[in-house]
């Protein structure tokens, strides 16, 4: 019976909101510890100054900006899965788009902290915002850094609207199953009086489609703008026209890896194995082959254009990055292998349907993507046009603590969310269940 299939979806998803397990609480506790560590590190940096970090000229951008670029990139797969695959009417997105969208919002929030942490004088960050003021000073709208502020803020706002709109019918379902207490009040307020009436669905469907259509070009633009923070400068290793598509593909690649990293433990912790079958992970692995192929092409074309251009500084920098630095070259080769060879292992059905392998590969892909950002940012700055200014950078304890803080902060928000709101889009899962029942 169709109604029993729909009831089963409700029971399983609402069941995942029940009392958390010990493992869940331990994970939350670990996140809390990492957050505390980061807060202490930031207090030290705030009062002592930026001297506690390993930043120095010429390496004035390092781990903080690496974290920013990495976490903005993570945010991209969420919108790819929820908006772009929605426009392509890809059915397999229906079970995973909520977690992917959650990841998007919390990853941007995490990313957004790092330019502030990096600023040093954080108390004047609002000078970046366009607002009328008595000094008649406005941001320079020709600067990629100001584009970045506008693009990332827009992405956060639009993704949040898109995410919340999709969540409303599911909150209403949970509201109707919740008897009383603070959760009932929360769901009453956030469901906005949703009744499932045709008129609501009609406008909701059009609004969701409009937002999906608007957010899709935004995905492409945001990471392109982030890449222009680098590509608009004249630094070797940054000044490249391939940067925008290269960054976007890398962002989606790392985001997909993060969705897999989050979902494999979550499906077990929330007992969602029946709804989140191996099929969904397999589809994401297949998509990673595609993004990994674009990355492979980008790496190849970067090396080829250096060789064919035969420009002195470009050539010496590329040789330094690949072979000349005992500190950085091993990282470079780890990145190349992690982002080119590793995704290609997903061509094997046996490997891409093995969740343990997929989890390990996804974590490695994320490490490789973080290191790729590190190589782009730090190694390029460490070896510029003047040999007298060449330097080696290593992150200090404060920077490491704040990088760990990002992981703790992100997963703390995700873990809190999945116990408060449905982590599977229930109305879409019900549609799927009905369609399967009809077959």
């Amino acid at each position, binding site marked *: 019976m169709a109604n029993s299939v729909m009831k089963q979806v409700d029971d399983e998803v609402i069941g995942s909101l029940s009392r958390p397990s010990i493992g869940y609480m331990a994970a939350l506790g670990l996140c809390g510890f990492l957050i505390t560590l980061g807060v202490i590190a930031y207090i030290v940096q705030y009062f002592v100054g930026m001297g506690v970090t390993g930043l120095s000229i010429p390496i004035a951008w390092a781990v903080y900006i690496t974290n920013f670029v990495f976490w903005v990139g993570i945010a991209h797969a969420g919108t790819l899965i929820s908006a772009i695959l929605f426009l392509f009417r890809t059915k397999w997105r229906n079970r995973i788009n909520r977690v992917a969208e959650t990841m998007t919002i919390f990853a941007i929030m995490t990313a957004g902290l790092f330019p502030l942490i990096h600023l040093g004088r954080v108390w004047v960050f609002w000078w970046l915002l366009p607002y009328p003021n008595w000094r008649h000073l406005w941001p320079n709208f020709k600067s990629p850094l100001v584009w970045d502020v506008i693009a990332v803020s827009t992405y956060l706002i639009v993704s949040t609207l898109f995410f919340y709109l999709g969540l409303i019918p599911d909150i209403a379902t949970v509201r*109707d199953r919740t008897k009383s207490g603070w959760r009932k009040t929360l769901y009453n307020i956030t469901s906005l009086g949703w009744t499932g009436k045709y008129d609501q669905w009609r406008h909701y*469907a059009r609004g969701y489609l409009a937002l999906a259509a608007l957010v899709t070009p935004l995905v492409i633009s945001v990471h392109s703008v982030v890449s222009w923070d680098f590509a608009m400068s004249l630094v070797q290793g940054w000044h490249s026209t391939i940067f925008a598509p290269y960054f976007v593909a890398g962002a989606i690649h790392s985001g997909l890896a993060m969705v897999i990293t989050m979902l494999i433990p979550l499906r077990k912790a929330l007992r969602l194995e029946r709804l989140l079958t191996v099929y969904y992970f397999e589809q994401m692995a297949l998509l990673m082959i595609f993004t990994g192929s674009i990355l492979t092409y980008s790496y190849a074309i970067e090396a080829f254009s250096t060789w064919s251009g035969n420009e002195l500084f470009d050539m010496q920098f590329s040789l330094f990055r690949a072979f000349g630095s005992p500190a950085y070259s091993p990282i470079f080769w780890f990145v190349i292998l992690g982002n080119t060879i590793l995704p290609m292992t997903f061509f094997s059905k046996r490997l891409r349907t093995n969740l343990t392998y997929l989890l390990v590969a996804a974590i490695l892909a994320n490490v490789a993507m973080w290191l790729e950002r590190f190589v782009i940012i730090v190694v390029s700055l460490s070896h510029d046009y003047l040999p007298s200014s060449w330097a080696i950078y290593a992150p200090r304890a404060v920077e490491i603590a704040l990088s760990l803080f990002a992981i703790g902060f992100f997963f703390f928000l995700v873990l809190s969310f999945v116990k408060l709101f449905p982590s599977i889009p229930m109305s879409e899962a019900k549609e799927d269940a009905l369609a399967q029942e009809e077959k």
Partner: protein
Amino acid sequence: MDNFVQVKAVFFDYECFVEGLKSLKDAHYMDYTAFGPTNLHEIEHLMPVKGSAVRVYATLGAILGLITFWLMCIFTSRIYMLITGGKPAVSNVPFIIPAYEGTILTGSIFAFIAVLIIAALGSHLPPADYDPRYSENAYGIELLCEDTRADKAVKLLEDAGATEVNRR
């Protein structure tokens, strides 16, 4: 003038629910609506009211955002005519980026607010006559018709396979 009555039918089977709507449409009933736990846009061709103005508002918002952000870039640059990066103070090519982001930002905000307003969302509680089964596993049809046509409507909905049919 005829008295109007409300007929309410509950379905636990999607096919029967669609059949019920078809029957009402074929019998030329004009004032009915539907409820359900899944997206009902697929039944739009069976409903008396179709379409939505949300996209119009989204487009208007997007155009407004494009113009506003572009003008903001131009006029704020004219306040302080400092040449940076070797470009004139008012350089339209770099201004494409803020204008593009502004287009999407304002279009999205307009689309979201339009959904809230047009779909009458924003209350902290559903109406008193709301049936919570509509968010779980039941579909519903509510019909307003003349007293004289109510019996026929009840019969049509029962024949379609409604589990419950009530009239008020």
